[in-house]
């Protein structure tokens, strides 16, 4: 029986993108369904009734939700080109860092959005400062540990790609948040997601992504 793999996602979402990278690394063919998050499809609501979010992977009719859970499922189902380490301790470390990065992103992104969408200079500055505070935590950990910046695209590196969204927001706003000077290790990592042929896959096409956020920003500014 042929495998049927569907991915409900959003092209601008780093969480959705992660799943695409994992599937591509494993050479799994899948049908991609772009969701309109303001008008969620009945299928999405049926497959993820608990959180009603993307990404959702549906494999032979069976749905899996939550990006890190999906990534582990993909790694266990299609065993070649492993994304997670085999050693239990290394695996625990990979899970720890992926979770850490996700948690930090949910602290950084609202701050970045605040900076992107606020009308006032003061609010913008506050947003940038907040974002940088959390980026600093990531920078410190990146410098001290050797879990990413590795040669291979693994579980942690794929998860860490969401840092690019911070860089995109900088271009949208014309402000610097993640500077090479303040965050040399993070900056080096982001370069990898821009330059490296393999790491590049983790991020949507640059120009359209920037254009999308510029549009969003424009729309929000117009509505104020």
């Amino acid at each position, binding site marked *: 029986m042929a495998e049927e793999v569907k991915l409900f996602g959003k092209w601008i979402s780093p969480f959705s993108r992660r799943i695409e990278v994992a599937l591509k690394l494993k050479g799994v063919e899948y049908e991609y369904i772009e969701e309109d998050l303001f008008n969620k499809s009945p299928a999405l609501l049926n497959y993820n009734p608990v959180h009603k979010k993307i990404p959702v992977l549906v494999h032979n009719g069976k749905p*899996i939700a939550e990006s890190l*859970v999906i990534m582990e*499922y993909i790694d266990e189902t299609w065993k070649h080109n492993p994304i997670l380490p085999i050693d*239990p301790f290394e695996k625990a470390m990979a899970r720890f860092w992926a979770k850490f990065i996700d948690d930090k992103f949910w602290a950084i992104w609202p701050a970045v959005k605040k900076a992107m969408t606020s009308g006032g200079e003061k609010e913008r500055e506050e947003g940038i400062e907040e974002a940088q505070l959390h980026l600093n935590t990531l920078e410190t950990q990146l410098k001290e540990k050797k879990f990413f910046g590795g040669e291979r695209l693994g579980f942690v590196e794929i998860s860490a790609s969401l840092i690019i969204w911070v860089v995109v927001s900088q271009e949208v706003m014309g402000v610097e948040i993640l500077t090479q000077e303040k965050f040399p290790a993070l900056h080096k990592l982001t370069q990898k997601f821009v330059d490296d042929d393999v790491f590049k896959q983790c991020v949507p096409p640059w120009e359209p992504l920037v254009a999308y956020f510029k549009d969003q920003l424009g729309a929000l500014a117009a509505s104020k």
Partner: protein
Amino acid sequence: MADEIVLLSYWPSMFGMRVRVALAEKGLKYEYREEDLRNKSPLLLMMNPVHKKIPVLIHNGKPISESMIIVEYIDEVWNHKSPLLPTDPYQRAQARFWADYVDKKLFDIGKKIIWSTKGEEETGKKEFIECLKLLEGELGDNPYFGGENFGFVDVSLVTFSCWFHTYESYGNFSIETECPKLVAWTKRCLEKESVSSSLADPHKIHDFASGMRKRLGIE
């Protein structure tokens, strides 16, 4: 060479208790070290420099943090006995999803009932009951979330049960009335030695919470 296992934890923590349950399920001997969270030990700060939180499992000198990550590690290393995760990838994904749901929701919502200074108790109570009902639905007619056997999701949730009396007391509701099947499940779990020996006494938890509330000026 014998395994050296140390657990840094804090007795009222439902997260720390999860690790104790997992270690007990596997029949493992370990050294338990109680942490004073207002005066964290140099060992804790060294072993979990990122979050400085308990629980931390130290296995042959190597530290692992985050309770469900620790539980999964224990399950993988000592895989010869009492498997907590099923072998099928889809069922494993479902187990991880629900353990993640417990992690994302229960603690933070529960905080609103016990520690809120902003009048969030009623909202907290409503949300808490909704979560428990969803989980009860997921349990269905199975003896455990793991099906016939006690498993990963059971570990993630059962440790909250010793806090139920405290949630009920401050939220002024009865979890048994709202979710009888879930309460029946907690009693079933408590029949297991690994669970009963790892969970704190609900009345001691209530005293602990009361003490904290006084210190926070809520009581």
